[in-house]
C-alpha cells in the first residue's frame, strides 16, 4: 500500500513539474525552447520524395528541405525567379538540328540550358554519407544490423558532403524511373532530349529482373543532359520551351545524392518504413528530424546550411546574378518548426485562438468569428481577433474553378451554333458572383477567362472583359441579363427550355462528387440557376472514382473542376483547352475535350514566347475565341485568407513560393506572455463539482443508512 502511495506521488509530482513553465492546457511538453514555430497539418503527406510530391501539403515540408536551382523572390510581385543553389540564372542557347549554336529563329531545333551551381553547399548530416576507411558502412545493411534501428535517428554515425552538379542530373534521371511514379515524367518526356529513350532503357533493365535501378541510373546518362564539371551541367530541350525554367524552380528538380538513393533502396530498411519517401535528404535550411505524420512532423535547422540573405524589394538581377540589397546571412530565423496533425477543424481553430499555433487558415465554419465587413464594405478582422493582435493576410490564388461542358456531348458539346448558343446562354444565366458570396464567403474573384490575377494576360473585367457574358453600359462593365440569355436560348432552338425539334423540355445532366450538406446546397443552387432560363438540370452525384471514370470516358455532360498553377505563366492555364491535351483522346488535362484549330495554332505560337506586347495580343485573341465558344462557364479565382499571431513575423503572401519558412520569425517574449494570459486555468467549476460530489456521496450514504434501518425495523 505504501508503495502505491509512493508511485502515485511520483506521478503527480512529475505532472506538476512538467506543467510548471506552461499553462495546463498546453499541448507541448515545454514552451521554454526559443524560436520554435508551431503549426498544424490536416492530412498526412503521402510522399516526401521530390520526384513524386506534387501537392501543397507535401510541398509545405519538402520545400524547406530540398533546394531546386531557382526560387521565387519572396517579396516581389509579379512573381519573379531568382537563383537559389544556382550561381546565376541559366545561360540559354539555341541549337540547330546539328546541335550547333544558332540565333536564327527559323533554324532553332533545340534549346540548351547551362546551369552553374554555387560552390560549398553542404547536405544535411545523414547516415548515407558516412564512410569508414573509405567505405560506406550503411550501404549494405543486413536485417541483423537493423535490429535496434527503427528510425533514422537510431543510426550512430552521420556525415555530409558537398552538393555537386551530378546530384541534379541524378534526380532528373530518377524522374524517368517508372518506379518513382513522377507525375511530370510525361511532360519531361515531351521536352528533354533523350528522356523517353532513357526511360525505355531503364524500364527494359528493370524488366530483366534487375532489382536495383540505382546502378543503371548511376552508370548511364540521358543523351540531352551532360555534367560539364563538378559545378555545372547542361540540359538540351527538344524545342523552345521558356516555361522550363519554372520547372527548374519546383521540388521535382531538387538534387538527389546517389548515396541516399542507394541507402534507401535497401530492402531491410524498407521493411522498417525507412524510405526516401519518408526521410528526405536535402541542402535546405531545415531537416526533418521527426517524421510521425500520424502525430507530428518536426523540422530543425540544418546546421550545415550555408545561410541566405533576407530578400529586399531592392534586390536586382545583374548579368543573371542576384545582387542582394541586404548583406548579412541571417536566414533561417527559426530554429525548429513543429507541425501537429490536426484533422478536425474545431480543435485546430481553438488551439490557434489559444496561441498554440502561430498561424491558421479560416475554415468556413469560423468565417463569421474571424472576418467581418466594415462600414465601407471591406473585409476586416472581427474585434475579438483584432484585440488578440491577430493579422489577416489575403491573396488571390493562381487557381481557377470552373464549370466545364463536355465538348464531345451531342447536346451541349461541339462547335455547331446550336450548342454554342446554348452554352453562351448558360454562361450568362449562372451567377458566379452569388456563388462566391454563398459558398466561398466572398473569398473569390469572378473569372473572365482561365487566367487568374497575377498571371500575364489576366483580364480584370474592367478594360478587358468577356464580351459574351458582360457588356459595357455607361462605362460600367455589367453582366448581361437573363433576358439576353433567353434570347440566345431561343436562337439555339430551345425557346423557354423546350427543344423545338422534339417538343420536349431540355434536360441537362451535371456530374457531381461529394455527399456533404455543402454539396447538396450547391446542387440546389445550381438547379435554380438553370431554372432561370427554364432548363431542367439533373444532378448525378457519385464518388470521385466514378466521376473520374466519366471524365476519362467522356460520358459526363457538365461538371465542375479546378486547376492550380504549376508556374505563373498563361501557358499553364491555356493548355487546359489545347486540343492535344484532350482527356478522352489523349488522357490530358483538357477535361472539356475542347478543340479549336485557331486556338490551337495561337497556343503553339504563344507558348514559346517571352512576355511581350505581341504575346499579350495573341493571348487576347485566344481568350476571345474561348469566351465566344464557351467550353467553360468561367467560374472564379479563389482568394486565400490566412491568419497569424502578432509574434509571427515576416509573413508575406506569396502563393507560388513554398520555401518561405526560412523567412519567418518568432517573437518568443510576446508569445509566452500572451499564452499565459489567454490560458489561465479556471478551477471554479472543478470546486463546484467537488462540493456537489461530496454532498451527493454524503446524502447517498445517509439515505442508504436510513433505508436500511427502516427495513430492519
Amino acid at each position: 500500500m505504501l508503495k502505491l502511495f509512493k508511485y502515485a506521488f511520483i506521478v503527480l509530482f512529475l505532472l506538476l513539474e512538467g506543467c510548471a513553465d506552461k499553462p495546463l492546457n498546453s499541448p507541448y511538453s515545454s514552451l521554454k525552447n526559443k524560436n520554435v514555430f508551431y503549426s498544424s497539418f490536416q492530412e498526412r503527406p503521402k510522399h516526401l520524395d521530390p520526384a513524386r510530391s506534387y501537392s501543397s501539403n507535401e510541398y509545405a515540408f519538402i520545400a524547406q528541405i530540398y533546394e531546386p536551382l531557382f526560387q521565387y523572390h519572396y517579396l516581389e510581385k509579379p512573381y519573379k525567379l531568382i537563383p537559389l543553389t544556382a550561381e546565376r540564372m541559366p545561360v540559354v542557347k539555341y541549337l540547330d538540328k546539328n546541335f550547333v549554336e544558332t540565333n536564327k529563329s527559323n533554324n532553332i531545333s533545340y534549346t540548351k540550358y547551362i546551369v552553374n551551381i554555387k560552390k560549398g553547399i553542404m547536405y544535411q548530416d545523414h547516415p548515407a554519407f558516412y564512410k569508414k576507411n573509405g567505405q560506406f558502412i550503411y550501404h549494405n545493411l543486413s536485417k541483423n544490423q537493423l535490429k535496434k534501428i527503427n528510425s533514422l535517428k537510431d543510426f550512430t554515425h552521420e556525415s555530409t558532403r558537398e552538393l555537386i552538379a551530378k546530384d541534379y542530373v541524378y534526380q532528373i534521371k530518377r524522374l524517368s524511373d517508372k518506379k518513382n511514379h513522377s507525375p511530370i515524367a510525361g511532360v519531361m518526356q515531351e521536352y528533354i532530349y533523350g528522356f523517353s529513350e532513357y526511360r525505355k532503357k531503364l524500364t527494359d533493365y528493370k524488366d530483366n529482373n534487375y532489382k536495383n535501378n540505382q546502378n543503371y541510373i548511376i552508370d548511364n546518362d540521358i543523351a540531352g543532359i551532360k555534367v560539364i564539371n563538378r559545378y555545372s551541367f547542361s540540359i538540351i530541350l527538344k524545342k523552345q520551351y521558356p516555361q522550363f525554367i519554372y520547372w527548374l524552380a519546383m521540388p521535382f528538380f531538387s538534387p538527389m545524392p546517389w548515396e541516399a538513393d542507394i541507402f534507401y533502396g535497401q530492402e531491410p530498411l524498407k521493411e522498417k518504413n525507412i524510405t526516401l519517401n519518408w526521410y528526405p535528404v536535402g541542402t535546405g535550411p531545415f531537416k526533418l528530424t521527426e517524421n510521425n505524420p500520424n502525430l507530428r512532423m518536426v523540422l530543425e535547422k540544418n546546421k550545415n546550411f550555408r545561410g541566405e540573405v533576407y530578400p529586399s524589394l531592392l534586390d536586382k538581377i545583374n548579368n543573371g546574378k542576384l545582387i542582394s540589397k541586404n548583406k548579412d546571412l541571417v536566414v533561417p530565423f527559426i530554429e525548429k518548426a513543429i507541425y501537429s496533425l490536426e484533422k478536425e477543424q474545431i480543435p485546430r481553430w481553438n488551439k490557434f485562438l489559444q496561441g498554440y499555433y502561430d498561424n491558421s487558415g479560416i475554415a468556413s465554419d469560423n468565417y463569421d468569428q474571424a472576418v467581418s465587413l466594415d462600414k465601407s464594405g471591406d473585409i476586416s478582422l472581427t474585434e475579438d481577433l483584432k484585440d488578440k493582435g491577430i493579422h489577416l493576410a489575403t491573396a488571390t490564388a493562381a487557381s481557377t474553378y470552373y464549370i466545364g461542358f463536355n465538348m464531345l456531348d451531342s447536346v451541349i458539346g461541339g462547335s455547331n451554333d446550336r450548342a454554342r448558343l446554348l452554352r453562351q446562354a448558360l454562361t450568362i444565366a449562372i451567377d458566379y458572383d452569388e456563388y462566391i458570396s454563398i459558398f466561398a464567403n466572398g473569398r473569390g474573384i469572378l473569372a473572365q477567362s482561365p487566367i487568374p490575377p497575377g498571371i500575364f494576360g489576366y483580364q480584370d473585367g474592367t478594360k478587358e472583359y468577356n464580351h459574351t457574358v458582360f457588356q459595357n453600359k455607361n462605362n460600367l462593365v455589367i453582366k448581361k441579363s437573363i433576358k439576353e440569355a433567353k434570347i440566345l436560348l431561343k436562337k439555339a432552338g430551345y425557346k423557354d427550355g423546350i427543344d423545338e425539334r422534339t417538343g420536349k423540355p431540355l434536360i441537362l445532366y451535371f456530374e457531381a462528387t461529394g455527399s456533404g450538406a455543402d454539396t447538396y446546397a450547391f446542387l440546389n443552387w445550381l438547379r435554380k440557376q438553370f431554372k432561370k432560363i427554364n432548363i431542367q438540370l439533373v444532378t448525378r452525384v457519385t464518388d470521385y472514382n466514378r466521376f473520374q471514370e466519366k471524365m476519362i470516358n467522356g460520358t459526363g455532360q457538365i461538371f465542375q473542376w479546378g486547376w492550380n498553377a504549376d508556374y505563373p505563366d498563361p501557358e499553364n492555364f491555356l493548355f487546359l483547352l489545347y486540343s492535344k491535351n484532350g482527356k478522352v483522346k489523349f488522357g490530358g488535362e483538357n477535361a472539356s475535350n475542347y478543340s479549336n484549330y485557331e486556338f490551337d495554332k495561337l497556343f503553339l505560337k504563344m507558348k514559346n514566347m517571352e512576355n511581350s506586347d505581341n504575346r499579350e495580343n495573341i493571348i487576347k485573341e485566344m481568350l476571345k475565341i474561348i469566351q465566344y465558344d464557351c467550353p467553360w462557364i468561367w467560374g472564379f479565382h479563389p482568394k486565400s485568407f490566412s491568419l497569424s499571431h502578432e509574434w509571427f513575423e515576416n509573413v508575406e503572401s506569396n502563393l507560388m513560393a513554398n520555401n518561405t519558412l526560412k523567412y519567418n520569425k518568432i517573437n518568443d517574449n510576446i508569445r509566452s506572455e500572451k499564452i499565459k494570459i489567454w490560458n489561465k486555468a479556471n478551477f471554479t467549476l472543478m470546486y463546484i463539482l467537488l462540493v456537489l460530489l461530496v454532498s451527493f456521496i454524503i446524502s447517498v450514504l445517509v439515505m442508504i443508512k436510513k433505508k436500511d434501518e427502516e427495513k430492519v425495523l
Partner: protein
Amino acid sequence: MIKYIIKRILYAIPILIGVNILTFTLFFVVNSPDEIARLHLGNKRVTQEQIISWNEERGYNNPLFYNNSEIGLKVFKKTIFYEKSFKLFLFDFGLSDSGRDIKYDIKQRMWPSLAIALPSLFVGLFINITFALFFVFFRFTYVDYFGVILCVALMSVSSLFYIIGGQYLISKLLHLVPISGYTQGLDAIKFLILPTIISVIYSIGSGTRWYRSLFLEEIEKDYVKTARSKGLSEVTVLFHHVFRNALIPILTGVVVILPLLFLGSLIVESFFGIPGLGSYTIDAIQSQDFAIVRAMVFLGSILYIFGLILTDISYTLVDPRVSLK
C-alpha cells in the same frame, strides 16, 4: 477444454474466409485497381502509363481470382485475391498502397489506442456498476425513475456532442487540459484525461441501464429472498449476494470486448488527434488505402472471434456449473 478451443478455432476458419471474400469483393467490385491507382497517384498529370506501372508494382495487374495465363497452382496463386487477401491468414499484411509496412504501423499504433481504451473501460465499468447498484438499491422509487430518465437522456445524445462540448468546456473555457494531441510517456496523461472522461460519460447511460437490468434480474431470485429472510441488511444482500452473482454476465461482457480494445475508437481518436488504430482505419478509408482496410477488417474479425472464445473460457472460470465440451 482444449478440444473445445481447437473446435472453436476450426469453426473460425470458414468465418474468416467468408469475411475475407466479402471484404475483397466489396472493394474490388466497387473500385477497380485503375481507380485505386488514380486516387493514389493524384489528380494532376496522371497518365495511363503511370497507372499501369503502379498496378504492376503492387500486383494489381493480375486477375482477381483465377489466372488463365499460368499453370498448376499458380493459376490461383498469381491472383490479386491470393496475393492481397489469402496471405492475411499467414499474418502477412504486406505493404499499404502508399508503400508502408502495415504490420509495423499496427504495432506502433495499437498502444495509443489501448492508452485510451483501457482506462475508459475500467473507469466506466466502475462508475456504471456503482450507479446501477445505487438505482437498484432505490428501485421503483423516484430516485430510480429519475436515474433511468437521466440514463435515457444521456444515451440519446450523440457522442460528437460530448466531444465538442467537452473540448469547449474543459479545454477552451476552463483551460484545464489540451484540446487535442498526444505524446509518448507520462506526458500523454494530460492528453488522455479528456477523451477518457468523455468516453466514460458517453457510456454511463447505456452501461448503467444494462447493469441495472442485470442486478434487477438477480435481485428477484430465491436465494436473495432467503438472504433477506435471514435478516441481512439490504446493503449486505446487494453487495455480498446480488453483486457477486451478477458478476458472471458482467465479466463475460467485458472479456468479449477486451481484444477489440486494440482497434481503438474511430471518432474519439480522430477528434483528439490520437494516433491509434481507430484513426488509422478512418484515414485508410478516406484515402481508399484498401490494403490497410483489408488488414484491419481481418484483424477485427480475428480479435472478435478470439474475444468470444475468451468469453466461453471465462464462463468456466467464474461459474463451476459450466463446462466446455
